[in-house]
């Protein structure tokens, strides 16, 4: 996780205030659907917007603490690790995301192809 993988770079995405507290925004990059979440303590997380169960759009789920509940069948994911919680087993991709000074949300993704 330290250092930057060769083909990745940081992208400036939006203002923190563009994402509702305990809410999300959606983003598409090279065909990959990404959901960006903002927690109640103003941390941001980005994950692939595809539930490991049956592909549910996680961006549409309820956000609580550092987790989201999938809107289709209620799987719960830890947003920092991308691991499904409780009895469910599954893993979704996560992307480094952070709020930089000035309140801009940045996301690390593969370089534009």
């Amino acid at each position, binding site marked *: 996780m330290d250092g930057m993988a060769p083909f990745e770079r940081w992208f400036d*995405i939006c203002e923190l205030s*563009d994402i509702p507290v305990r809410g999300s925004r959606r983003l598409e990059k090279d065909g990959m659907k990404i959901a*960006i979440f903002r927690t109640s303590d103003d941390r941001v997380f980005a994950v692939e917007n595809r539930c490991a169960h049956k592909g549910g759009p996680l961006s*549409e*789920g*309820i956000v609580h603490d550092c987790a989201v509940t999938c809107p289709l069948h209620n799987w*719960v994911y830890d947003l920092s690790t991308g691991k499904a919680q409780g009895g469910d087993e599954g893993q979704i991709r996560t992307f480094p995301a952070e709020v930089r000074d000035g309140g801009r949300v940045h996301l690390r993704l593969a370089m534009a192809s």
Partner: protein
Amino acid sequence: MSREKLVIIGAGMAAGRFLEHLLDANPDAYDITLFNAEPRGTYNRIMLSPVLSGEKSYEEIVTHTDDWYAEQGITCRFGERIISVDRANKTVLGEKGIVAYDKLVIATGSSPFIIPMPGHDLSGVLAYRDLEDTNGMIDACQPGAKAVVIGGGLLGLEAAAGLRLRGMDVTVLHLMPTLMERQLDPSAGYLLEKELADRGIEIRTGANSKEIYGDGKVEGIRLEDGTDIPANLIVMAVGIRPSIAIAKEAGLDVGRGILVDCKMKTSDPSIYSVGECVEFEGNCYGLVAPLFDQAKVLANALIAEADDTDFVHSETATKLKVTGVDLFSAGDFADGEGRDEIVFRDPARGIYKRLVLEGDKLVGAVLYGETADGAWFFDKIKKGEEIGAEDRATLIFGQSYAGGSPLDPMAAVAALPDEAEICGCNGISKGQITQAIDEKGLSDVEGVRACTKASGSCGTCTGLVESLLAWKLGDAFAAPAKNAVCGCTELGHDEVRRLIVSQRLKSVPAVMQELSWKTSCGCAKCRPALNYYLLASWPGEYVDDNQSRFINERVHANIQKDGTYSVVPRAWGGVTTAAELRAVADVVDKYDIPMVKYTGGQRIDMLGVKKEDLPGVWADLNEAGMVSGHAYGKSLRTVKTCVGSEWCRVGTQDSTGLGIKLEKLMWGSWTPHKVKLAVSGCPRNCAEATCKDIGVVCVDSGYQIHIAGAAGMEVRATDHLTTVTTEEEAIEMCAAVLQAYREQGFYLERIYKWTARIGGAEKVHELIVDDVENRKALFERFKYAQQFSQDDPWAERASGKVDAHEFKTLELVE
């Protein structure tokens, strides 16, 4: 053979317990008449404090119901005060007539002392003794209202804490320098004062009140030092006096109380007395434990063959019933010559413990912050047990001291001797409870309570009883499966709903903070439930928390398995027009919607709409006059109708018209779960009204109202609630049912489940059909709430002003 006549004056806690013992021993011994000045039978007076704070309802604290008295054949004259006793003729004079007795029991309890200062008789000055006082205080709890409680003893502080929990601004005036000085030493009094101050209660010690002022109604109180404190409510809790007036007037021997011997007999051999009105060997009592002992002795005395016990004076221990404050005191803890003390303090955790020893005996204990060992110390005090030199060193750490670390609660009860008292109010020991568990095969707290009375009075020992059960039964003991809302709290839906209202909690964070949620911001289960409860409790005030709603309700469309959405506009009563159909057709073409379908609810569903297209689809549908059908919400869904008398050759009333009126009245309202209605024009019932949440079946003479049907995972025909003659009445009835459900239903509980939980359609009948006033009030509250919920959520979002971010995806900025 005619039975002896037993008359009892007062149906308080002592009389209630006495009757139980008497009837247990011999149900047929007496012909019993029971008088009570309060308009009700026995309830657990101790629990008025949780009623005041909103943690319990009155119904939960009734110990003797009307049915119980009827079963026992007792003649009840509740709401009737006894004016005098004629000992020569052996009669009592009540407000409604004379009754003769062979044996008389005086159980009049005590009356609160009212300081006769100027203004004490103004409206808004209350004591704290009975249900009327409690309800008076609850009524006074308006936003911004101020209360002053005079008296910083047990009752005063429970009143102050309860009023504070209900949102009152509370000041306690206490004459002495520290709170509860009779039960606590100054250190514990200080900790208590700090705790209460932290809760926002202002404590003024050394405060001497001079007069209450106000014009007909309380406006404030003035102290000796000239300070004025404004108040809308003043509660006097400065002490009680045994109620002995009728006994004294009848010429019985009295002191502070009615004098009795060790069999509870007064100076007249036909008259007995029990409870707080009694004086025995110079002692009067103000806690129930000794009164319950008296009740037992008296029952034995009145059933001659069982007469083998005497009443003996014993120590009582004190606990304060303020949730979150743990305090215990027992015995005599004054300093004195020949007395030693052992003190333990842990300021960080707010714990203070002090034991007082005289010679090698424990004589007093004060515990604050951690009281688990209270019963154990109390036991040693009562028994006068000798404390050896080596035990003395570890005594303060309590019974669980074993190598320094405290044991878990189960190990702690396991370590108790059989004689250790578990329930102080009822004097029930560990041995009695374990014996009852073994012999009667008890498996839960309710069973133990029914059999032994342990935990049935002030309830503070419930946890100990649970631990005992767990210890005796191991895995066979299922800890009370409280229906907690979710893993974030111990509280059930009913408690959460009640506390939101009683503590005037008005936001999700306020609920989580005040009700000690275990997670920082809840979960997908509790947040939508809390959001609904707040919305239903504070219409017009609470601001909906969109992020606490399930996606369908957040974006006002149903999410589909592929992440697209379906859109269902309202078709009022299942009716549509050419213009609407044309608009639907145009929308389907314009947005390339892959599927159009008639739903099972008589309306059209457009499926497969992309999220970003939703605002456009809605704008076009709005244009044609269509609004959201809430097919996605825990809210009013469809009102199905049949064609009715307008067209049908056998229709009796305009079922289509009524259905439309109902839908126009109810649309937009949020409910615990979805709600579906239907109106059929005749008993052929083509709209399937008898499997809906609320159904109307029109008949020649009027409208049959049906409730509590279901046709989903469970299929259940409705119950017939009532039949009314006019359309207006039908509308009022349906709306009242809906509002009652909105106010009482648990989140995700359909109407049929709510009905079953509260006692069936008969109960709903009682609440809504029989109680006309209640029905009207429910209807008014429904209409009031509807003012705030009938804005079309689609129009709001199509305008782009609400939740615009929801529907747009982000762009990458390079």
